[in-house]
Protein backbone atom coordinates (compact mmCIF):
# COMPACT_ATOMS: atom_id res chain seq x y z
CA UNK A 1 0.00 0.00 0.00
CA UNK A 2 2.81 2.30 0.91
CA UNK A 3 4.54 1.46 -2.38
CA UNK A 4 1.35 2.23 -4.23
CA UNK A 5 1.01 5.63 -2.53
CA UNK A 6 4.64 6.41 -3.33
CA UNK A 7 4.11 5.50 -6.98
CA UNK A 8 1.03 7.69 -7.09
CA UNK A 9 2.94 10.61 -5.64
CA UNK A 10 5.74 10.10 -8.12
CA UNK A 11 3.25 10.06 -10.97
CA UNK A 12 1.62 13.28 -9.76
CA UNK A 13 5.02 14.94 -9.37
CA UNK A 14 6.18 13.86 -12.82
CA UNK A 15 2.97 14.81 -14.60
CA UNK A 16 4.05 18.39 -15.38
CA UNK A 17 7.34 17.05 -16.76
CA UNK A 18 5.47 14.76 -19.15
CA UNK A 19 3.15 17.53 -20.25
CA UNK A 20 6.13 19.83 -20.73
CA UNK A 21 7.92 17.24 -22.87
CA UNK A 22 4.83 16.70 -25.00
CA UNK A 23 4.40 20.44 -25.52
CA UNK A 24 8.09 20.75 -26.38
CA UNK A 25 7.75 18.01 -28.98
CA UNK A 26 4.76 19.75 -30.57
CA UNK A 27 6.67 23.04 -30.68
CA UNK A 28 9.71 21.53 -32.35
CA UNK A 29 7.68 21.10 -35.53
CA UNK A 30 7.79 24.85 -35.91
CA UNK A 31 11.00 26.03 -34.31
CA UNK A 32 10.76 29.51 -35.79
CA UNK A 33 7.31 30.24 -34.34
CA UNK A 34 4.48 31.87 -36.26
CA UNK A 35 5.03 34.49 -38.90
CA UNK A 36 4.17 37.98 -37.67
CA UNK A 37 1.87 38.66 -40.61
CA UNK A 38 -1.31 36.51 -40.27
CA UNK A 39 -1.90 36.49 -44.04
CA UNK A 40 1.61 35.09 -44.58
CA UNK A 41 1.09 32.58 -41.76
CA UNK A 42 -2.09 31.27 -43.38
CA UNK A 43 -0.34 30.95 -46.76
CA UNK A 44 2.58 29.28 -44.99
CA UNK A 45 0.23 26.70 -43.48
CA UNK A 46 -1.52 26.06 -46.76
CA UNK A 47 1.76 25.59 -48.65
CA UNK A 48 3.48 23.40 -46.06
CA UNK A 49 0.41 21.13 -45.88
CA UNK A 50 0.52 20.67 -49.65
CA UNK A 51 4.20 19.70 -49.79
CA UNK A 52 5.15 16.10 -49.23
CA UNK A 53 7.96 15.17 -46.89
CA UNK A 54 10.01 12.97 -49.22
CA UNK A 55 11.56 11.04 -46.38
CA UNK A 56 8.25 9.87 -44.89
CA UNK A 57 6.27 10.30 -48.15
CA UNK A 58 2.81 10.18 -46.60
CA UNK A 59 3.31 13.13 -44.31
CA UNK A 60 3.35 16.77 -45.31
CA UNK A 61 6.35 18.89 -44.39
CA UNK A 62 4.02 20.72 -41.97
CA UNK A 63 3.46 17.49 -40.02
CA UNK A 64 6.87 15.89 -40.26
CA UNK A 65 9.66 16.26 -37.75
CA UNK A 66 12.55 15.06 -39.91
CA UNK A 67 15.36 17.43 -40.74
CA UNK A 68 14.59 17.69 -44.44
CA UNK A 69 11.01 18.79 -43.67
CA UNK A 70 12.34 21.43 -41.31
CA UNK A 71 14.80 22.66 -43.98
CA UNK A 72 11.98 22.85 -46.51
CA UNK A 73 9.72 24.73 -44.07
CA UNK A 74 12.53 27.22 -43.55
CA UNK A 75 12.78 27.58 -47.33
CA UNK A 76 9.01 28.22 -47.67
CA UNK A 77 9.11 30.74 -44.83
CA UNK A 78 12.05 32.64 -46.33
CA UNK A 79 10.45 32.77 -49.77
CA UNK A 80 7.16 34.04 -48.29
CA UNK A 81 8.94 36.75 -46.35
CA UNK A 82 10.86 37.67 -49.52
CA UNK A 83 7.50 38.28 -51.19
CA UNK A 84 7.46 35.23 -53.47
CA UNK A 85 4.07 34.01 -54.76
CA UNK A 86 2.61 30.61 -53.86
CA UNK A 87 3.17 29.51 -57.46
CA UNK A 88 6.81 30.53 -57.32
CA UNK A 89 7.30 28.51 -54.13
CA UNK A 90 5.61 25.42 -55.57
CA UNK A 91 7.66 25.80 -58.73
CA UNK A 92 10.86 26.01 -56.69
CA UNK A 93 9.93 22.70 -55.03
CA UNK A 94 8.78 20.83 -58.15
CA UNK A 95 11.84 22.01 -60.10
CA UNK A 96 13.98 20.22 -57.54
CA UNK A 97 11.87 17.33 -56.30
CA UNK A 98 9.36 16.74 -59.11
CA UNK A 99 5.56 16.78 -59.04
CA UNK A 100 5.54 14.04 -56.40
CA UNK A 101 6.48 16.66 -53.80
CA UNK A 102 2.96 18.08 -54.11
CA UNK A 103 -0.06 16.40 -52.61
CA UNK A 104 -2.10 18.35 -55.13
CA UNK A 105 -0.21 17.77 -58.39
CA UNK A 106 -0.85 20.17 -61.29
CA UNK A 107 -3.06 19.04 -64.16
CA UNK A 108 -0.79 18.31 -67.13
CA UNK A 109 -0.32 15.46 -69.62
CA UNK A 110 1.86 13.48 -67.21
CA UNK A 111 -0.74 13.67 -64.43
CA UNK A 112 -3.91 13.18 -66.52
CA UNK A 113 -4.11 9.58 -65.41
CA UNK A 114 -4.00 10.52 -61.71
CA UNK A 115 -6.73 13.11 -62.08
CA UNK A 116 -8.72 11.10 -64.61
CA UNK A 117 -8.63 7.74 -62.80
CA UNK A 118 -11.68 8.42 -60.55
CA UNK A 119 -13.77 9.47 -63.54
CA UNK A 120 -12.60 6.49 -65.58
CA UNK A 121 -13.52 4.15 -62.72
CA UNK A 122 -16.96 5.74 -62.31
CA UNK A 123 -17.51 5.46 -66.07
CA UNK A 124 -16.48 1.78 -66.10
CA UNK A 125 -18.75 1.12 -63.12
CA UNK A 126 -21.65 2.92 -64.84
CA UNK A 127 -21.19 0.87 -68.03
CA UNK A 128 -21.17 -2.37 -66.02
CA UNK A 129 -24.32 -1.38 -64.10
CA UNK A 130 -26.18 -0.33 -67.27
CA UNK A 131 -25.26 -3.60 -68.97
CA UNK A 132 -26.42 -5.69 -66.01
CA UNK A 133 -29.64 -3.68 -65.73
CA UNK A 134 -30.39 -4.10 -69.43
CA UNK A 135 -29.72 -7.81 -69.32
CA UNK A 136 -32.02 -8.19 -66.33
CA UNK A 137 -34.72 -6.13 -68.02
CA UNK A 138 -34.80 -8.69 -70.78
CA UNK A 139 -35.34 -11.61 -68.38
CA UNK A 140 -38.85 -13.07 -68.08
CA UNK A 141 -40.76 -11.74 -65.11
CA UNK A 142 -42.19 -15.02 -63.92
CA UNK A 143 -40.67 -16.76 -60.91
CA UNK A 144 -40.05 -20.03 -62.66
CA UNK A 145 -36.34 -20.36 -63.43
CA UNK A 146 -35.86 -20.85 -67.16
CA UNK A 147 -33.14 -22.92 -68.71
CA UNK A 148 -31.53 -19.68 -69.93
CA UNK A 149 -30.48 -18.45 -66.49
CA UNK A 150 -29.65 -21.73 -64.87
Amino acid sequence: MRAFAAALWLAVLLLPVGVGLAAGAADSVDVYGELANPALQSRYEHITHDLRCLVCQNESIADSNVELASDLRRQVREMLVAGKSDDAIFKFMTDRYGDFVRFNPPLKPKTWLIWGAPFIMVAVGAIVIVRIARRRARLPLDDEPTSEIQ
Partner: protein
Amino acid sequence: MLKFVIPVMAFLALVVLFAFGLNPHRDIHALPSPLIGKQAPKLDLMDVMDPSRHVDNAALKGQVYVLNVWGTWCVECRVEHEELLAIAQQHVVPLIGLDYMDQRDKAKQWLTQLGNPYESVGFDTDGRTAIDWGVYGAPETFLVDGQGRVLYKFISPITAEVWEHEFLPRIAAARRSGA
Protein backbone atom coordinates in the same frame (compact mmCIF):
# COMPACT_ATOMS: atom_id res chain seq x y z
CA MET B 1 -15.81 -13.09 -79.12
CA LEU B 2 -15.95 -10.15 -76.67
CA LYS B 3 -16.51 -12.60 -73.82
CA PHE B 4 -13.09 -14.02 -74.57
CA VAL B 5 -11.23 -10.81 -75.39
CA ILE B 6 -12.17 -8.82 -72.27
CA PRO B 7 -10.83 -11.32 -69.68
CA VAL B 8 -7.65 -11.82 -71.69
CA MET B 9 -7.13 -8.06 -71.93
CA ALA B 10 -7.80 -7.68 -68.20
CA PHE B 11 -5.35 -10.48 -67.47
CA LEU B 12 -2.65 -8.92 -69.64
CA ALA B 13 -3.22 -5.54 -67.98
CA LEU B 14 -2.73 -7.19 -64.57
CA VAL B 15 0.45 -8.92 -65.78
CA VAL B 16 1.89 -5.57 -66.85
CA LEU B 17 0.82 -3.94 -63.58
CA PHE B 18 2.33 -6.69 -61.44
CA ALA B 19 5.51 -6.91 -63.51
CA PHE B 20 6.01 -3.23 -62.74
CA GLY B 21 4.56 -3.04 -59.23
CA LEU B 22 6.01 -6.23 -57.76
CA ASN B 23 9.43 -5.96 -59.35
CA PRO B 24 11.85 -6.60 -56.46
CA HIS B 25 14.49 -4.38 -58.07
CA ARG B 26 12.25 -1.33 -58.04
CA ASP B 27 12.88 0.94 -55.06
CA ILE B 28 9.47 2.42 -54.28
CA HIS B 29 11.08 5.32 -52.47
CA ALA B 30 13.37 6.25 -55.35
CA LEU B 31 11.95 9.27 -57.14
CA PRO B 32 12.94 10.30 -60.65
CA SER B 33 14.92 13.52 -60.47
CA PRO B 34 13.52 16.45 -62.46
CA LEU B 35 17.13 17.64 -62.83
CA ILE B 36 18.05 15.00 -65.40
CA GLY B 37 19.07 16.69 -68.66
CA LYS B 38 19.12 20.09 -66.96
CA GLN B 39 22.01 22.26 -65.84
CA ALA B 40 23.41 21.03 -62.53
CA PRO B 41 22.68 23.33 -59.58
CA LYS B 42 25.48 25.37 -58.11
CA LEU B 43 27.66 23.78 -55.49
CA ASP B 44 30.01 26.12 -53.70
CA LEU B 45 30.90 24.96 -50.21
CA MET B 46 33.62 24.78 -47.66
CA ASP B 47 35.81 21.68 -47.93
CA VAL B 48 35.35 19.18 -45.09
CA MET B 49 39.05 18.38 -44.91
CA ASP B 50 40.30 21.94 -45.22
CA PRO B 51 37.88 24.80 -44.38
CA SER B 52 40.14 27.31 -46.09
CA ARG B 53 39.46 25.55 -49.40
CA HIS B 54 36.28 25.80 -51.44
CA VAL B 55 34.57 23.08 -53.39
CA ASP B 56 33.06 24.75 -56.44
CA ASN B 57 31.49 22.79 -59.28
CA ALA B 58 32.00 25.74 -61.64
CA ALA B 59 35.67 24.77 -61.57
CA LEU B 60 34.74 21.30 -62.84
CA LYS B 61 33.23 22.59 -66.06
CA GLY B 62 34.62 20.71 -69.03
CA GLN B 63 34.91 17.38 -67.25
CA VAL B 64 32.53 14.59 -66.39
CA TYR B 65 32.23 14.14 -62.63
CA VAL B 66 30.32 12.18 -60.03
CA LEU B 67 28.73 13.84 -57.01
CA ASN B 68 28.06 11.54 -54.08
CA VAL B 69 25.81 12.65 -51.22
CA TRP B 70 26.62 11.05 -47.88
CA GLY B 71 26.78 11.60 -44.14
CA THR B 72 28.37 9.86 -41.18
CA TRP B 73 24.85 9.23 -39.76
CA CYS B 74 23.97 7.21 -42.85
CA VAL B 75 24.42 3.47 -42.39
CA GLU B 76 24.09 2.69 -46.08
CA CYS B 77 26.85 5.18 -46.86
CA ARG B 78 29.14 3.10 -44.69
CA VAL B 79 28.17 0.09 -46.81
CA GLU B 80 28.81 2.05 -49.98
CA HIS B 81 32.15 3.45 -48.85
CA GLU B 82 34.19 0.37 -49.83
CA GLU B 83 32.82 0.56 -53.35
CA LEU B 84 33.58 4.28 -53.59
CA LEU B 85 37.18 3.58 -52.62
CA ALA B 86 37.38 0.95 -55.36
CA ILE B 87 35.83 3.37 -57.87
CA ALA B 88 38.34 6.06 -56.90
CA GLN B 89 41.14 3.56 -57.59
CA GLN B 90 39.97 3.27 -61.21
CA HIS B 91 40.61 7.01 -61.79
CA VAL B 92 37.80 7.24 -64.34
CA VAL B 93 36.15 10.44 -63.13
CA PRO B 94 36.65 12.79 -60.21
CA LEU B 95 34.45 11.85 -57.26
CA ILE B 96 33.10 14.86 -55.45
CA GLY B 97 31.46 14.39 -52.06
CA LEU B 98 28.57 16.30 -50.53
CA ASP B 99 28.53 15.84 -46.78
CA TYR B 100 24.87 16.21 -45.83
CA MET B 101 23.29 16.96 -42.41
CA ASP B 102 26.55 16.20 -40.68
CA GLN B 103 29.20 17.47 -38.30
CA ARG B 104 32.49 18.44 -39.85
CA ASP B 105 34.78 16.77 -37.32
CA LYS B 106 32.86 13.51 -37.57
CA ALA B 107 33.07 13.64 -41.36
CA LYS B 108 36.76 14.37 -41.20
CA GLN B 109 37.30 11.45 -38.85
CA TRP B 110 35.31 9.13 -41.14
CA LEU B 111 37.46 10.05 -44.15
CA THR B 112 40.68 9.78 -42.20
CA GLN B 113 39.88 6.39 -40.72
CA LEU B 114 38.09 4.71 -43.64
CA GLY B 115 40.00 6.29 -46.49
CA ASN B 116 39.02 9.21 -48.67
CA PRO B 117 37.71 8.35 -52.14
CA TYR B 118 36.81 11.97 -52.91
CA GLU B 119 38.78 14.59 -54.76
CA SER B 120 37.03 17.11 -52.54
CA VAL B 121 34.06 17.06 -50.18
CA GLY B 122 31.70 20.00 -49.78
CA PHE B 123 30.30 20.55 -46.31
CA ASP B 124 26.60 21.43 -46.54
CA THR B 125 26.10 23.21 -43.24
CA ASP B 126 22.44 24.17 -43.61
CA GLY B 127 21.14 21.73 -46.23
CA ARG B 128 20.55 24.45 -48.85
CA THR B 129 22.80 22.94 -51.49
CA ALA B 130 21.09 19.59 -50.93
CA ILE B 131 17.68 21.20 -51.50
CA ASP B 132 18.92 22.75 -54.75
CA TRP B 133 19.98 19.29 -55.90
CA GLY B 134 16.67 17.75 -54.85
CA VAL B 135 18.40 15.54 -52.29
CA TYR B 136 16.08 13.83 -49.81
CA GLY B 137 18.33 11.20 -48.31
CA ALA B 138 21.70 9.55 -48.54
CA PRO B 139 23.40 8.01 -50.35
CA GLU B 140 22.43 9.66 -53.59
CA THR B 141 24.80 9.89 -56.53
CA PHE B 142 24.68 12.23 -59.52
CA LEU B 143 26.56 12.02 -62.80
CA VAL B 144 27.28 15.39 -64.43
CA ASP B 145 28.71 15.88 -67.92
CA GLY B 146 31.35 18.33 -69.13
CA GLN B 147 28.73 20.90 -70.06
CA GLY B 148 27.45 20.83 -66.51
CA ARG B 149 24.26 18.87 -67.25
CA VAL B 150 22.94 16.22 -64.90
CA LEU B 151 23.02 12.94 -66.82
CA TYR B 152 21.88 10.48 -64.21
CA LYS B 153 20.94 10.07 -60.57
CA PHE B 154 21.21 6.91 -58.53
CA ILE B 155 19.51 6.52 -55.16
CA SER B 156 20.78 3.94 -52.62
CA PRO B 157 24.31 2.55 -52.24
CA ILE B 158 26.34 2.10 -55.42
CA THR B 159 27.51 -1.44 -56.06
CA ALA B 160 30.17 -2.65 -58.50
CA GLU B 161 27.34 -3.82 -60.75
CA VAL B 162 25.60 -0.44 -60.71
CA TRP B 163 28.87 1.33 -61.40
CA GLU B 164 29.64 -0.93 -64.33
CA HIS B 165 26.16 -0.98 -65.88
CA GLU B 166 24.73 2.44 -65.09
CA PHE B 167 27.67 4.79 -64.68
CA LEU B 168 30.53 3.62 -66.91
CA PRO B 169 28.49 3.42 -70.16
CA ARG B 170 27.04 6.90 -69.55
CA ILE B 171 30.48 8.32 -68.81
CA ALA B 172 31.86 6.78 -72.00
CA ALA B 173 28.90 8.06 -74.04
CA ALA B 174 29.27 11.58 -72.61
CA ARG B 175 32.96 11.61 -73.52
CA ARG B 176 32.30 10.25 -77.00
CA SER B 177 29.78 12.99 -77.70
CA GLY B 178 32.33 15.53 -76.54
CA ALA B 179 30.27 16.50 -73.52
